[in-house]
């Protein structure tokens, strides 16, 4: 049996690494840096053998010619982000081994737990993976298992399906024959708009951000699922459905309130959330 040791959710805002590294960061950015350093420490303290990373792809790779809602990558090694992302955001590349045994184990168990994962033997990871990995494990020394979710190309699964899939992944991990210590890292969004009329240089909907993070902090998955409809998310900002990955994390945590959670509003970019569940001491369900 594999052991789930830590669940961490952060943003994959591709501007954030540059803002942190840049000259004279504003207080909100310094706060993000400190928060994410804490997340890095948390994951290190949990001593995972493998990081299951749950994130999206920004139509860089999976497209509407064959768009799976949930896909597991199982090539031996992976890297990212895409060249045009490096160009646009000046991102640092990330490379890691894939833990094929765990990837195949999850894939094999998935049907039994009612989830239909697509799989891929040839893929890369875009900034939704490389940005959070760069924050939480810049050493690039822990093998990963990438799980891609469709949050970009409608129709995307509704929030309750993300919640159910999170619960199912938890159960799959619990029956994996490998004795691995498994850390979960996921990235998503709060309210963000890209390519729409709203500016992307601040939270696109502070009310949505505060409301949702409050519900997450309280472990109130039921209300999150009820309120985070496609319509409400889109109204908050046209790429806000990336929020769905946080709902999946709530499912992975079986609805328990996180051990650490926070939200900051830098002046020049989208809100910066974090949430973490520490599971090494056992998890009161």
């Amino acid at each position, binding site marked *: 049996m594999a052991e789930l040791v830590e669940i961490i959710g952060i943003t994959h805002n591709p501007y954030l690494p540059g803002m942190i590294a840049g000259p004279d960061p504003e207080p909100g950015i310094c706060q993000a840096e400190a928060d994410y350093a804490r997340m890095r420490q948390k994951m290190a303290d949990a001593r995972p053998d493998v990081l299951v990373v749950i994130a999206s792809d*920004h*139509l*860089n790779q999976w*497209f*509407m*010619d064959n768009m799976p809602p949930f896909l597991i990558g199982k090539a031996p090694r992976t890297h990212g982000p*895409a060249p*045009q992302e490096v160009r*646009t955001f000046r991102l640092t590349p990330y490379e890691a081994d894939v833990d094929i045994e765990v990837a195949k184990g999850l894939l094999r168990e998935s049907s039994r737990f009612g989830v239909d994962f697509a799989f891929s033997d040839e893929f890369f990871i875009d900034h939704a993976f490389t940005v959070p990995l760069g924050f939480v494990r810049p050493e690039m020394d822990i093998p990963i298992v990438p799980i891609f979710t469709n949050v*970009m*190309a*409608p*129709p995307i699964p509704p929030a309750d399906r993300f919640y159910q899939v999170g619960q199912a992944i938890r159960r799959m991990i619990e029956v994996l024959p490998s004795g691995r210590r498994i850390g979960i890292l996921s990235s998503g969004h709060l309210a963000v708009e*890209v*390519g*729409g*009329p*709203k*500016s992307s240089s601040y939270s696109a909907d502070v009310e949505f951000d505060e409301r949702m993070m409050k519900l997450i902090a309280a472990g109130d998955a039921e209300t999150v699922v009820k309120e985070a409809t496609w319509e409400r998310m*889109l109204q908050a900002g*046209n*790429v806000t459905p990336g929020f769905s990955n946080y709902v999946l994390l709530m499912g992975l945590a079986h609805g328990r309130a996180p051990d650490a959670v926070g939200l900051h509003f830098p002046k020049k970019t989208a809100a910066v959330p974090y949430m973490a569940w520490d599971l090494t001491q056992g998890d009161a369900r």
Partner: protein
Amino acid sequence: MTRYQVDKVLRQVINDDTALEAFQRDAAAFLEGRDLSDEERKGLIDIDYPALYKLGAHPFILSGFTMRVWPADRRGLQAEYQERIAPHGYPDFET
């Protein structure tokens, strides 16, 4: 329903340098044989992003495409983009 075909063009131009060059060399030729409406074809050839936005092109790749192929000065393009699409609100972009 040819919205998918528009998105496909946007994405090819963003992701594939050969496609980008072909598009920039002769957009009409690049689009030949594709199942596009006249409006969509014209919108792509003219890089008329407000028109494409209104027709339901995926906003994420539409903005990436526009930033990539915009032929004139790009200072202020972001602000101008937002302003010019704003009247169209939030068109459905499901394919």
